[in-house]
């Protein structure tokens, strides 16, 4: 047995142990024992994934009673990469859970389903055939559903959120099954190797591609299948949200990669345009909703939609460019998608863990009631800040490298050697660049708001004022997450080489490490070396900084009283910007898209029309796609349900008549 196979077997055993431990231990020890076992399970995934990523081979065969081939688990390099990424997030989430899990999230159900969820998620990328892929996919979905269900008793809104989640999960599962069914029906096999024999130019391939794209896009929280995200993730505790939004979305990306790279490579150009459009709409819509959200977890949830949109944008660009034979740019776009997936996992997990820490200390997720946490929770603030830099794609983080790479690929994509590659590409690429530019700008605004309103300034509520730093066991995963975010940005060269090797052999972006772990993308002739730049900047900045400090020491600071304070001499927290007021200009600009509902309530003093006692302003932004796309469908379904109830009126005679008619119809059909 090879080490990869042993690693997978270890994951199976650890999952069973974790389930047993969660069931058997008392509530006092449960979080510690189960958390450690879940962390070990994720650790086994990290080791197995890393081994597979660097070329290790091994397989685990599960015989079944079904009339199919046995289920074979054998991760290739790409599968190993995804397993590694989701396991690292799972590890951080498990460690965080040891400290943060309380009441409902420390229940038996919660820890059992956490282990099952992690297990399913880690083994989806190891599947080599449709049946095992779908099996682990459903284990993952069911595990996450049960994990959320554990909080049903404490919060009333969980039930409706879960109905959305289950419905959308099953919808995307349906698309995935339908897509695989088309492939399997045409090729006659269920192994991925057999499915890959289908000609991408055939109409069946296109049908399967669209179905699979919708299915995997749903898991990756893309518009229009994202509606569960802003409902479910705010209900989940921090570590669960981190595992879902940091890790589970990567399984959706993996599915899309599987289709574009392994099963149906070299598809027609319109596939690429379709994926790009889906990604672009998701990116814009996600960041727009995030920028106006005032609930921290809703903001982070929509930001996931944005990042996954960018990943799909890169993926679509690579399909389109490959169809136009601009291989260098195509591979660079694919690499950018992978870079973004990896760095998104790091920063989004850290952000959600940070949000979990804030929720634990203050019990508050509304940004309008937070503030001043920076001095009260310095560790959390630092980690959240580093991750927010990554999410805003600012330098020295993985997010920056990924978006830089994506922009470079798109900029170099429309021309190869001075020749225009195709009309489609020359239209799509500049548009995509514009989308990324707008997205990046809004992302910056969003995360300035998220960090600035929550952690800086003065506390806006008593709860925020009384916040305390979280215990060490929760600080450790936060710190590791922040280090990963920055580390991925400082060492892009080795990272890109590893990612490029994962894509091989047919797709192999030509990248090398250059300078101090910098990245040299030869396919499109660009170089980025953040560490060297940072060192250079340090060399330049240190003398300046020293000079500034020296001059500051010579001139003691003068303290002057406020010359004028608008009638009041004391600054109060209510005078500060809130998340809602910060986003107000944006809401006005994008009024047509966001369609916010405002409720202004003015209380007058006595009979006077001019003297105002109190003004109450409430603004809520609903999900347009939910209200415009899903509500009509739901209303239609409900109408059908009401009609159908007439057929089921409880009369025994009616049911007997149905059987009688059915029998008559069968007899008539038989005799025809």
């Amino acid at each position, binding site marked *: 047995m090879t080490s990869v196979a042993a690693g997978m077997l270890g994951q199976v055993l650890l999952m069973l142990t974790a389930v047993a431990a969660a069931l058997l231990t008392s509530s006092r020890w449960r979080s510690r024992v189960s958390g450690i076992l879940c962390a070990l399970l994720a650790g086994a995934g990290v080791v197995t994934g890393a081994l597979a990523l660097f070329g290790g081979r091994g397989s685990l065969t599960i015989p079944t009673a079904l009339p199919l081939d046995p289920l074979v688990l054998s991760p290739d390099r790409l599968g190993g990469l995804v397993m590694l990424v989701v396991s690292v997030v799972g590890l951080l989430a498990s460690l965080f859970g040891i400290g943060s899990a309380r009441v409902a999230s420390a229940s038996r159900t919660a820890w059992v389903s956490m282990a099952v969820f992690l297990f399913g998620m880690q083994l989806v990328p190891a599947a080599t055939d449709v049946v095992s892929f779908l099996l682990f996919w459903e284990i993952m979905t069911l595990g996450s559903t049960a994990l959320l269900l554990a909080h049903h008793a404490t919060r009333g809104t969980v039930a409706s959120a879960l109905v959305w989640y289950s419905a959308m999960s099953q919808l995307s599962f349906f698309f995935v099954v339908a897509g695989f069914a088309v492939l399997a029906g045409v090729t006659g096999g269920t192994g991925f190797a057999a499915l890959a024999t289908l000609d991408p130019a055939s109409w069946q391939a296109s049908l399967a591609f669209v179905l699979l794209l919708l299915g995997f896009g749903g898991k990756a929280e893309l518009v229009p299948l994202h509606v569960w995200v802003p409902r479910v993730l705010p209900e989940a505790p921090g570590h669960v949200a981190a595992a879902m939004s940091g890790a589970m979305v990567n399984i959706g990306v993996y599915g899309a990669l599987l289709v574009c790279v392994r099963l149906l490579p070299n598809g027609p150009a319109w596939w690429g345009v379709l994926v790009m459009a889906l990604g672009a709409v998701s990116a814009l819509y996600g960041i727009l909703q995030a920028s106006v959200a005032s609930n921290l977890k809703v903001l982070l949830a929509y930001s996931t939609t944005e990042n996954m949109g960018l990943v799909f944008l890169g993926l679509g660009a690579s399909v389109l460019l490959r169809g136009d034979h601009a291989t260098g740019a195509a591979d660079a776009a694919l690499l950018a998608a992978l870079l973004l997936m990896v760095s998104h996992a790091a920063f989004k997990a850290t952000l959600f863990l940070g949000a979990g820490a804030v929720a634990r200390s203050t019990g508050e997720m509304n940004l309008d009631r937070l503030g001043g946490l920076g001095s009260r929770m310095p560790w959390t603030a630092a980690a959240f800040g580093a991750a927010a830099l990554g999410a805003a794609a600012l330098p020295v983080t993985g997010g920056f490298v990924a978006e830089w790479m994506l922009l470079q690929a798109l900029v170099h994509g429309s021309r190869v050697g001075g020749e225009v590659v195709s009309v489609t590409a020359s239209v799509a690429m500049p548009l995509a660049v514009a989308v990324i530019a707008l997205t990046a700008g809004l992302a910056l605004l969003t995360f300035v708001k998220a960090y600035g309103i929550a952690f800086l300034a003065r506390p806006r509520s008593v709860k925020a004022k009384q916040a305390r730093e979280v215990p060490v066991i929760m600080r450790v995963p936060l710190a590791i997450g922040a280090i990963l975010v920055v580390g991925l940005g400082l060492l892009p060269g080795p990272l890109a080489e590893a990612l490029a090797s994962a894509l091989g052999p047919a797709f192999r972006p030509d990248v090398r490490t250059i300078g101090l772990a910098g990245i040299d993308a030869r396919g499109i002739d660009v170089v980025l070396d953040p560490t060297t730049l940072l060192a250079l900047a340090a060399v330049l900045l240190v003398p300046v900084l020293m000079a500034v400090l020296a001059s500051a020491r010579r001139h003691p600071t003068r303290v002057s009283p406020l010359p004028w304070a608008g009638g009041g001499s004391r600054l109060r927290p209510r005078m500060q910007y809130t998340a809602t007021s910060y986003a107000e200009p944006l809401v006005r600009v994008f009024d047509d898209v966001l369609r916010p509902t405002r409720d202004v309530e003015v209380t007058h003093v006595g009979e006077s029309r001019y003297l105002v006692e109190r003004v109450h302003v409430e603004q809520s932004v609903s999900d347009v796609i939910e209200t415009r796309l899903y509500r009509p469908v739901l209303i239609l379904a409900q109408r059908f349900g009401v009609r159908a109830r007439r057929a089921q009126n409880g009369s*025994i005679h009616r049911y*007997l008549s149905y059987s*009688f008619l059915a*029998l*008559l119809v069968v*007899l*008539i059909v038989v*005799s025809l």
Partner: protein
Amino acid sequence: MFDTVYPQLIGLCTGALLLTSALMVWRHSLLASIRLLSAQGFALAALVAVIGVEEGAAEVIIVSVLVLLVKGMGLPWVLAHETRATTRTDEAPRLNPTAGLLTVALLTILSYVVASRLLRDDSSVSAHAAGIGLAMVLIGFLLLVTRRQAGSQLIGFLVLDNGIATVAFLTSGGVPLFLELGISLDVLLVVVILYVFAGRMRNKFGNTDIDQLRKLHD
């Protein structure tokens, strides 16, 4: 001598079966229906006996005696006993007699068409008569759908069962003795249970109109 009489006897017995079934749709009185059911039981027993003599199988003769005892005497006696003791109202079916008889005619035609398609390769006399069995099944079902009282429903169910037995005897020379014994006991059990159930209904609601049973209770 028997060879020439055999088809006629089969025709006579199956004719009696169909006639009794059709009459059950026509008659409203529960007691009359029970008498017809008894007659149907006798006809079925005669049919089984004829098949037994033709095949020279002693086992089938024993089955025919069993059928006579259970379907011709036992079940109708139980039903009549209970009905006399309890029921005062007659059936008001959901289908008037004329429409009922018309439907019976249509169902019989359909059964013949289906049976002739299904048993295309079997040219024996009994196979030709198998349509009657199918028609009885459908007529039994029709009784179930159109009758309101629990007692009449039970009769419909028994006609359906007789129809199944008829098809079984005509197409494959009957089922093994033990199986037939088991089926008869099952039917007896169902009848007893349904009668207990109907009695409880009557105690609770004052009648046995199943149209009033529309809601589920814990």
